[in-house]
Protein backbone atom coordinates (compact mmCIF):
# COMPACT_ATOMS: atom_id res chain seq x y z
CA UNK A 1 0.00 0.00 0.00
CA UNK A 2 1.36 3.42 -0.94
CA UNK A 3 1.87 5.87 1.88
CA UNK A 4 -0.02 8.60 0.04
CA UNK A 5 -2.75 8.10 -2.57
CA UNK A 6 -3.87 10.88 -4.88
CA UNK A 7 -6.02 10.68 -7.98
CA UNK A 8 -3.91 12.04 -10.86
CA UNK A 9 -6.91 13.34 -12.82
CA UNK A 10 -7.03 15.30 -15.03
CA UNK A 11 -9.85 17.27 -13.45
CA UNK A 12 -11.59 19.89 -15.60
CA UNK A 13 -14.04 22.38 -14.10
CA UNK A 14 -15.59 25.61 -15.36
CA UNK A 15 -14.31 28.95 -14.14
CA UNK A 16 -15.93 30.02 -10.90
CA UNK A 17 -16.65 26.50 -9.68
CA UNK A 18 -15.53 25.11 -6.35
CA UNK A 19 -12.74 22.60 -6.72
CA UNK A 20 -12.18 19.76 -4.28
CA UNK A 21 -8.89 17.88 -4.26
CA UNK A 22 -8.05 15.16 -1.81
CA UNK A 23 -5.56 12.55 -0.67
CA UNK A 24 -5.60 9.57 1.60
CA UNK A 25 -2.63 8.28 3.54
CA UNK A 26 -1.68 5.25 5.58
CA UNK A 27 1.08 6.42 7.94
CA UNK A 28 -0.33 7.53 11.29
CA UNK A 29 2.96 9.26 12.09
CA UNK A 30 2.33 12.06 9.60
CA UNK A 31 1.90 15.36 11.44
CA UNK A 32 2.68 17.94 8.76
CA UNK A 33 0.34 18.20 5.79
CA UNK A 34 1.08 20.37 2.78
CA UNK A 35 -0.39 21.23 -0.57
CA UNK A 36 1.95 22.27 -3.34
CA UNK A 37 1.06 23.81 -6.69
CA UNK A 38 3.23 23.05 -9.68
CA UNK A 39 3.01 24.79 -13.02
CA UNK A 40 4.39 23.14 -16.13
CA UNK A 41 8.23 23.05 -16.20
CA UNK A 42 8.42 24.63 -12.76
CA UNK A 43 9.17 23.31 -9.30
CA UNK A 44 6.54 22.69 -6.62
CA UNK A 45 5.47 25.80 -4.71
CA UNK A 46 4.00 25.57 -1.22
CA UNK A 47 0.37 26.63 -1.22
CA UNK A 48 -0.97 25.60 2.18
CA UNK A 49 0.42 23.96 5.29
CA UNK A 50 -1.40 22.43 8.25
CA UNK A 51 0.00 20.89 11.38
CA UNK A 52 -2.00 17.97 12.79
CA UNK A 53 -5.79 18.10 12.33
CA UNK A 54 -8.13 20.90 11.48
CA UNK A 55 -8.91 23.47 8.85
CA UNK A 56 -6.89 26.34 7.49
CA UNK A 57 -8.11 29.08 5.19
CA UNK A 58 -6.09 31.42 3.00
CA UNK A 59 -8.05 33.55 0.60
CA UNK A 60 -9.84 31.29 -1.87
CA UNK A 61 -8.05 28.19 -0.55
CA UNK A 62 -9.06 25.96 2.36
CA UNK A 63 -7.09 22.96 3.58
CA UNK A 64 -8.67 20.29 5.76
CA UNK A 65 -7.05 17.43 7.63
CA UNK A 66 -9.00 14.54 9.15
CA UNK A 67 -6.48 12.36 10.93
CA UNK A 68 -9.11 9.90 12.13
CA UNK A 69 -9.92 9.07 8.52
CA UNK A 70 -6.39 9.70 7.22
CA UNK A 71 -7.86 12.06 4.64
CA UNK A 72 -6.82 15.54 3.58
CA UNK A 73 -8.55 17.97 1.25
CA UNK A 74 -7.91 21.21 -0.57
CA UNK A 75 -10.83 23.38 -1.64
CA UNK A 76 -10.51 26.19 -4.16
CA UNK A 77 -13.39 28.66 -4.29
CA UNK A 78 -14.19 30.87 -7.28
CA UNK A 79 -11.67 28.99 -9.39
CA UNK A 80 -9.75 30.96 -12.01
CA UNK A 81 -7.97 29.85 -15.22
CA UNK A 82 -4.71 30.82 -13.48
CA UNK A 83 -5.40 28.04 -10.96
CA UNK A 84 -4.79 25.50 -13.72
CA UNK A 85 -1.79 23.49 -12.52
CA UNK A 86 -0.85 20.22 -10.87
CA UNK A 87 -1.66 20.09 -7.17
CA UNK A 88 0.44 17.81 -5.00
CA UNK A 89 -0.47 16.74 -1.52
CA UNK A 90 2.55 16.13 0.69
CA UNK A 91 3.17 14.95 4.22
CA UNK A 92 5.92 14.41 6.74
CA UNK A 93 6.20 13.02 10.26
CA UNK A 94 9.09 15.30 11.16
CA UNK A 95 8.66 18.73 9.70
CA UNK A 96 7.32 20.95 6.97
CA UNK A 97 10.57 20.61 5.06
CA UNK A 98 11.82 17.22 6.21
CA UNK A 99 11.79 14.11 4.02
CA UNK A 100 8.49 15.03 2.43
CA UNK A 101 6.28 12.23 1.08
CA UNK A 102 4.39 13.38 -2.00
CA UNK A 103 1.25 12.19 -3.70
CA UNK A 104 1.34 11.80 -7.47
CA UNK A 105 -0.41 15.11 -8.01
CA UNK A 106 -3.76 15.99 -9.60
CA UNK A 107 -3.77 17.92 -12.87
CA UNK A 108 -6.42 20.61 -12.71
CA UNK A 109 -7.81 22.53 -15.68
CA UNK A 110 -10.06 25.53 -15.11
CA UNK A 111 -12.04 26.19 -18.27
CA UNK A 112 -12.71 29.87 -19.10
Amino acid at each position, binding site marked *: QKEVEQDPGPLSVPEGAIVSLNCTYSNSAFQYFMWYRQYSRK*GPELLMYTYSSGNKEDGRFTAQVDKSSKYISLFIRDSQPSDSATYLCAMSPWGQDDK*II*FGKGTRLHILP
Partner: protein
Amino acid sequence: EAGVTQFPSHSVIEKGQTVTLRCDPISGHDNLYWYRRVMGKEIKFLLHFVKESKQDESGMPNNRFLAERTGGTYSTLKVQPAELEDSGVYFCASSRRTLTNTEAFFGQGTRLTVV
Protein backbone atom coordinates in the same frame (compact mmCIF):
# COMPACT_ATOMS: atom_id res chain seq x y z
CA GLU B 1 15.98 37.45 -3.37
CA ALA B 2 16.97 34.70 -5.80
CA GLY B 3 15.20 31.39 -5.43
CA VAL B 4 16.67 27.92 -5.65
CA THR B 5 18.41 27.54 -8.98
CA GLN B 6 19.35 24.34 -10.72
CA PHE B 7 21.67 23.68 -13.63
CA PRO B 8 21.26 22.45 -16.27
CA SER B 9 17.53 22.66 -16.86
CA HIS B 10 17.70 19.71 -19.22
CA SER B 11 20.35 17.07 -19.92
CA VAL B 12 20.37 14.24 -22.43
CA ILE B 13 23.14 11.69 -22.03
CA GLU B 14 23.88 8.19 -23.21
CA LYS B 15 23.72 5.19 -20.95
CA GLY B 16 27.06 4.71 -19.25
CA GLN B 17 28.01 8.38 -19.27
CA THR B 18 28.41 10.62 -16.27
CA VAL B 19 26.22 13.60 -15.47
CA THR B 20 26.54 16.19 -12.73
CA LEU B 21 23.58 18.24 -11.61
CA ARG B 22 24.04 21.41 -9.62
CA CYS B 23 21.82 23.18 -7.11
CA ASP B 24 22.29 26.64 -5.67
CA PRO B 25 20.07 27.04 -2.61
CA ILE B 26 18.65 30.27 -1.33
CA SER B 27 21.38 32.21 0.47
CA GLY B 28 21.44 31.44 4.19
CA HIS B 29 19.54 28.17 3.90
CA ASP B 30 21.39 25.47 5.82
CA ASN B 31 19.08 22.67 4.75
CA LEU B 32 19.32 21.33 1.22
CA TYR B 33 17.32 18.44 -0.19
CA TRP B 34 17.41 16.43 -3.39
CA TYR B 35 14.26 14.80 -4.73
CA ARG B 36 13.54 12.91 -7.94
CA ARG B 37 10.44 12.27 -9.99
CA VAL B 38 10.55 9.31 -12.31
CA MET B 39 7.90 9.37 -15.05
CA GLY B 40 4.54 8.27 -13.78
CA LYS B 41 5.67 8.16 -10.17
CA GLU B 42 5.63 10.46 -7.18
CA ILE B 43 8.36 12.92 -6.29
CA LYS B 44 10.63 10.97 -3.96
CA PHE B 45 13.17 12.06 -1.40
CA LEU B 46 16.82 11.29 -2.12
CA LEU B 47 18.86 13.00 0.58
CA HIS B 48 19.21 15.88 3.02
CA PHE B 49 22.19 18.08 3.80
CA VAL B 50 22.56 20.28 6.83
CA LYS B 51 25.29 22.68 5.81
CA GLU B 52 27.98 20.40 4.37
CA SER B 53 26.95 17.26 6.27
CA LYS B 54 24.69 14.53 4.98
CA GLN B 55 21.85 14.32 7.49
CA ASP B 56 19.88 11.59 5.74
CA GLU B 57 20.71 9.78 2.52
CA SER B 58 18.22 6.96 2.90
CA GLY B 59 16.54 7.76 -0.40
CA MET B 60 19.60 7.43 -2.60
CA PRO B 61 18.85 4.58 -5.00
CA ASN B 62 22.34 3.07 -5.26
CA ASN B 63 26.05 3.83 -5.19
CA ARG B 64 25.99 5.25 -8.71
CA PHE B 65 24.66 8.43 -7.13
CA LEU B 66 26.99 10.75 -5.26
CA ALA B 67 25.92 14.01 -3.67
CA GLU B 68 28.24 16.64 -2.29
CA ARG B 69 27.88 20.02 -0.68
CA THR B 70 31.36 21.34 -0.17
CA GLY B 71 31.50 24.43 1.98
CA GLY B 72 27.83 24.18 2.78
CA THR B 73 26.76 26.31 -0.17
CA TYR B 74 25.85 24.78 -3.53
CA SER B 75 25.39 21.06 -4.01
CA THR B 76 26.11 18.65 -6.82
CA LEU B 77 24.53 15.32 -7.61
CA LYS B 78 26.60 13.07 -9.81
CA VAL B 79 25.28 9.99 -11.56
CA GLN B 80 28.02 7.65 -12.73
CA PRO B 81 27.47 5.59 -14.81
CA ALA B 82 23.98 6.65 -15.81
CA GLU B 83 21.35 3.99 -16.53
CA LEU B 84 18.07 4.28 -18.43
CA GLU B 85 16.04 4.12 -15.21
CA ASP B 86 17.79 7.23 -13.92
CA SER B 87 15.74 9.35 -16.32
CA GLY B 88 13.43 11.76 -14.57
CA VAL B 89 13.23 15.21 -13.08
CA TYR B 90 15.62 15.98 -10.24
CA PHE B 91 14.49 18.68 -7.83
CA CYS B 92 16.50 20.50 -5.25
CA ALA B 93 14.93 22.28 -2.29
CA SER B 94 16.30 24.39 0.53
CA SER B 95 15.03 25.70 3.83
CA ARG B 96 16.05 27.79 6.80
CA ARG B 97 14.38 26.56 9.94
CA THR B 98 12.95 29.10 12.34
CA LEU B 99 10.61 28.69 15.30
CA THR B 100 7.61 29.48 13.16
CA ASN B 101 8.48 28.44 9.65
CA THR B 102 10.32 25.60 8.01
CA GLU B 103 9.06 25.97 4.45
CA ALA B 104 11.04 24.19 1.76
CA PHE B 105 11.56 26.12 -1.47
CA PHE B 106 12.00 24.09 -4.62
CA GLY B 107 14.01 24.77 -7.72
CA GLN B 108 12.62 24.34 -11.21
CA GLY B 109 14.22 20.93 -11.58
CA THR B 110 16.70 19.32 -13.96
CA ARG B 111 15.13 17.02 -16.52
CA LEU B 112 17.53 14.14 -17.11
CA THR B 113 17.06 11.85 -20.09
CA VAL B 114 19.29 8.80 -20.42
CA VAL B 115 19.18 7.19 -23.87
